[in-house]
């Protein structure tokens, strides 16, 4: 696929970074504000969609099946499972326990393992959506 016009490319350059940052913002505040891992996955994947649509897959040398994104997808779930499994074997002997210190409610670093779960699911959802997009678009 070839890309779109210069105007779209320029606007893209301006906004994609912001969208991506916004995704990172939601993911880190997933346990404090509405919206969490799944919404973040969609936002971050959306940033990538815009890039691919504006610049075209030829310049980015994308193939129908990208190793990187599928590995990221598996890694996301794997981190999630390892975090949950750690609780079972090391800490409390109960699957899925929140074993890190909870901190003060409302602080950025609080609520134990939940932010880590959020990040893992965010990676997984973003990579999965991007994979689907590639399979349909290219």
């Amino acid at each position, binding site marked *: 696929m070839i890309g779109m016009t210069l105007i779209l490319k320029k606007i893209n350059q301006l906004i994609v970074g912001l969208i991506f940052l916004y995704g990172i913002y939601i993911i880190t505040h997933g346990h404090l504000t509405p919206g969490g891992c799944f919404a973040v996955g969609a936002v971050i994947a959306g940033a990538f969609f815009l890039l691919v649509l504006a610049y075209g897959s030829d310049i980015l040398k994308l193939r129908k099946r990208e190793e990187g994104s599928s590995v990221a997808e*598996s890694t996301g779930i794997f981190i999630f499972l390892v975090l949950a499994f750690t609780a079972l074997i090391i800490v409390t002997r*109960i699957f899925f326990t929140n074993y890190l210190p909870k901190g003060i409610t409302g602080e950025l670093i609080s609520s134990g393992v939940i932010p880590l779960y959020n990040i893992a699911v965010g990676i997984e959802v973003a990579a999965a959506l991007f994979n689907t997009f590639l399979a349909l678009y290219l």
Partner: protein
Amino acid sequence: MNSLIPLFIILPLATAILIMLFGRLAKVLQKALPSAVLLFLTGLSFYFIISWDSGIYIYEIGGWGPIDNIPISIYFVLDGLSILMLCIINLVGFLSGFYAISYIKRYTGENKFYALFCLMIAGMNGVVLSGDIFNLYVYLEIAAISSYALVAFEVEKEKLEASYKYQVLGCLSSFFILLNIGLLYWYTKSLNIADISRIMEASANKNLIIFIQILFIAGFGLKAALIPFHAWLPDAHSSAPSPISAMLSGVLIKAIGIYLIIRLFFNMFDITYEIALLITVIGTLSMVIGVLLAIGQWDMKRLLAYHSISQMGYVIIGIGIGMLILAKGGNKSWAALSIAGGLFHMTNHAVFKGLLFLNAGAVEYTTGTRNLKELGGLSGSMPVTSSTSLSASMAISGIPPFNGFFSKLIIIIAAAKAQYFLLTFLAISVSIITLASFLKLQKKTFYGKLKNWNLNKIKEAPFTMCFSMIVLAILCIGLSLLIIPGIRENIMIHVVYTLINKSNYLLILSEL
């Protein structure tokens, strides 16, 4: 025992992910890991069934107890029926996975096959263990969606068509089930099966509950391919690669269809005469029409698929007669016998139907066809496949001393004792027609004239395939032991009594 319960979901899930991550780097890993994990889980489930003391075990995920007596967490509930199902799922899963090591070599994308296979097993284990209806739905979808992909694994025109049909009907049934879960949640404000049951006992809106029950029968009936809902099964089960056909026919339709009908209608709803009658009628229809449709088939796997419908009919009438007796307030021990017959037949069906599909796979593997008109005279060159297939055929058509005979016998005795003579007659006649159909399969495939095959080309299947078939053939005879009074009392009747005493299941609320 308690802390081992989540392993049934964690391990297959982790295997699936590990295969996707590292399977390409180490080919050995992707082949050996699923079998090893499933062997371990099989051992674990057999340990559970031996050490089971007729209690109900609960596992609270994340250590969340109830708040104000409302069970808010996700619970795994392990009782007799769950343990029995876990044994079936993991045993047939292990043998199919081991069989697949040789069988799947011919295809590309082996790592995807194993990953989807493990996901399907994780989903089914989750369905069986889950104690609340929403998680049950999630696991059900995991199992169903991976099976859609596996049916289309060979990516040919007919396979894709079969998979598409399966997906459309599968989505319809998922829609019914999710709609029901929504209705139940709206009505009872709870998702835990035991809690819902308790709330519905207190205040019953009869019409809504009947509506929900009928939608559940439609939803799970579609997953279990009972007769008015069976259209997808023959296509899907005959198009999948053989180890997957064995899993779909041997396990999946039971775990996400029959098991859930049993679980919800015994432990969540009150048994009413009308619903029991409906279930029995559907079972009878499946039993009779399934076998009549199977007679004319010339595709080996299609024939087996139609027989699955018919044998599921046996299971359902066993359950249905038990429900009818219980609803009428009849003799509880006859009801228990009938339900035990149904569950016993379900176990047996997993073994012999799994074996028959593996046999069909072995025949297809060596000859490249499964059209009965083109096959013939293979018994000389494929002794293992031929003899194991004979034992499975005898088991499914109810010839003593194979396991199928005893389970059908129990169902027939229970039907006669409960004075459903038409059902008794039909069950016996269907068994005879099944025998006829399997004699045809045996004669056309393994006996009779050898067709013009290149004899050097036809060899026995490789070791891993033979191993799985032999183990299942031994089980076809070995499971007959479950009929011996001491063992029967200890396992089957125990399972049934914990199932039919609804108050027993409700006790888990107090244990939380």
